[in-house]
């Protein structure tokens, strides 16, 4: 029994052996060198330039974002300019007179009038439906360009139209690009 106890006392487990590894520790001299080297390497990473492909990607993505924003603004502006012209072309008293669409519409209307019991009322309704609810009478634009290097910051465009008693204003700003478009009608 005594031998058994003695052998148990002398028994060494694998866990105990592994814990001896905790004693493999570097001294203070090692840590002083370690700290100095680490600080140097961290400073190097702070001032180190990104690889060329990262720089290119960053530049390209920045340009794409800028170009997309300017492009979107241009499309929006173009639509705003084109829209009244399109609407105007359907008017009976427009500068170009009646066009094909209007003539077709008028023909259909006349057919309808001929078959309708109240001709006068139908024509009146037709005319009132064809007149647009607004018209652009003036377009004014202003661009304050402080240069591409300034990332298009203080640019502005304005479209305005005034129709007698009705006065309203819509404005759209394209966030981040510094562009703002105002539609007054």
């Amino acid at each position: 029994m005594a031998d058994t106890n003695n052998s148990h006392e002398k028994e060494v487990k694998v866990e105990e052996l592994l814990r001896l590894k905790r004693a493999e520790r570097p001294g203070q001299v090692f840590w002083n060198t370690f700290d100095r080297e680490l600080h140097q390497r961290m400073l190097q990473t702070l001032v180190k330039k990104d690889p060329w492909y990262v720089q290119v990607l960053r530049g390209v993505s920045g340009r794409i974002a800028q170009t997309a924003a300017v492009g979107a603004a241009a499309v929006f502006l173009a639509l705003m300019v084109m829209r009244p012209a399109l609407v105007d072309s359907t008017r009976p008293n427009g500068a170009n007179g009646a066009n094909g669409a209007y003539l077709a519409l008028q023909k259909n209307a006349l057919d309808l009038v001929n078959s309708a019991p109240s001709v006068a009322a139908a024509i009146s309704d037709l005319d009132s439906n064809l007149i647009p609810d607004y018209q652009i009478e003036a377009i004014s634009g202003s661009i304050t360009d402080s240069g591409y290097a300034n990332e298009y910051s203080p640019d502005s465009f304005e479209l305005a139209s005034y129709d007698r008693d009705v006065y309203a204003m819509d404005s759209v700003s394209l966030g981040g690009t510094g562009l703002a478009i105002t539609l007054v009608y």
Partner: protein
Amino acid sequence: MANSGSVTKPIFPAQEKTLTERDLDWAVVRKVQAGNVGAFDQLVQKYREHIFSVIYNMTSNREDASDLTQETFIKAFQAIARFRGKSSFFTWIYRIAINHTMTFLKKRNRRRFISYEKIDEEVSNSEIFERLTANNRSEKGVLVSELQEKLNDALQKLSLRHRTVVILHEIEGLEHAQIAEITKTSIGTVRSRLHYAKQQLQSYLQDYIT
């Protein structure tokens, strides 16, 4: 083992990793994220020895371990702006260290250079060495260096996954749950790997295990 002093004292007691500890680290991380770069040094001072210990025991090379530990902190520093605190900083930095070391060891492949850290002299006076000396009838100084070599060899024979779990549990003193979080595995997997690894080590170190 009761009188084995600093040898048996866990380097990194799992119980100390409370919420408070996590919060303290998080506060320092927020400082660094706010631009106080110098605050990162607090994290380096706190974790450098633990990280070095893990990497050293994984590589069995003190120079590699030193380089990899530095690189671990540099990686953490570079990525700290993206650290959102979903896990503790402790888990995060351990994960970086282990992943980085595994990548290094996989690249190093068959080239194995062993460079040991000097073993603490206290250990030769520990109770376990008294028993080992009695069992092996060897001179204590010889036994220390011989056992150090055998232990490192045995660890290097384990697969990286098994080695990592053994190091984190038996040497670093982390709990199964903490290891599972670091290695992104289940607790069951950790236990299973630990069991297998210990069996392997027992066969490699049978000359010392009575």
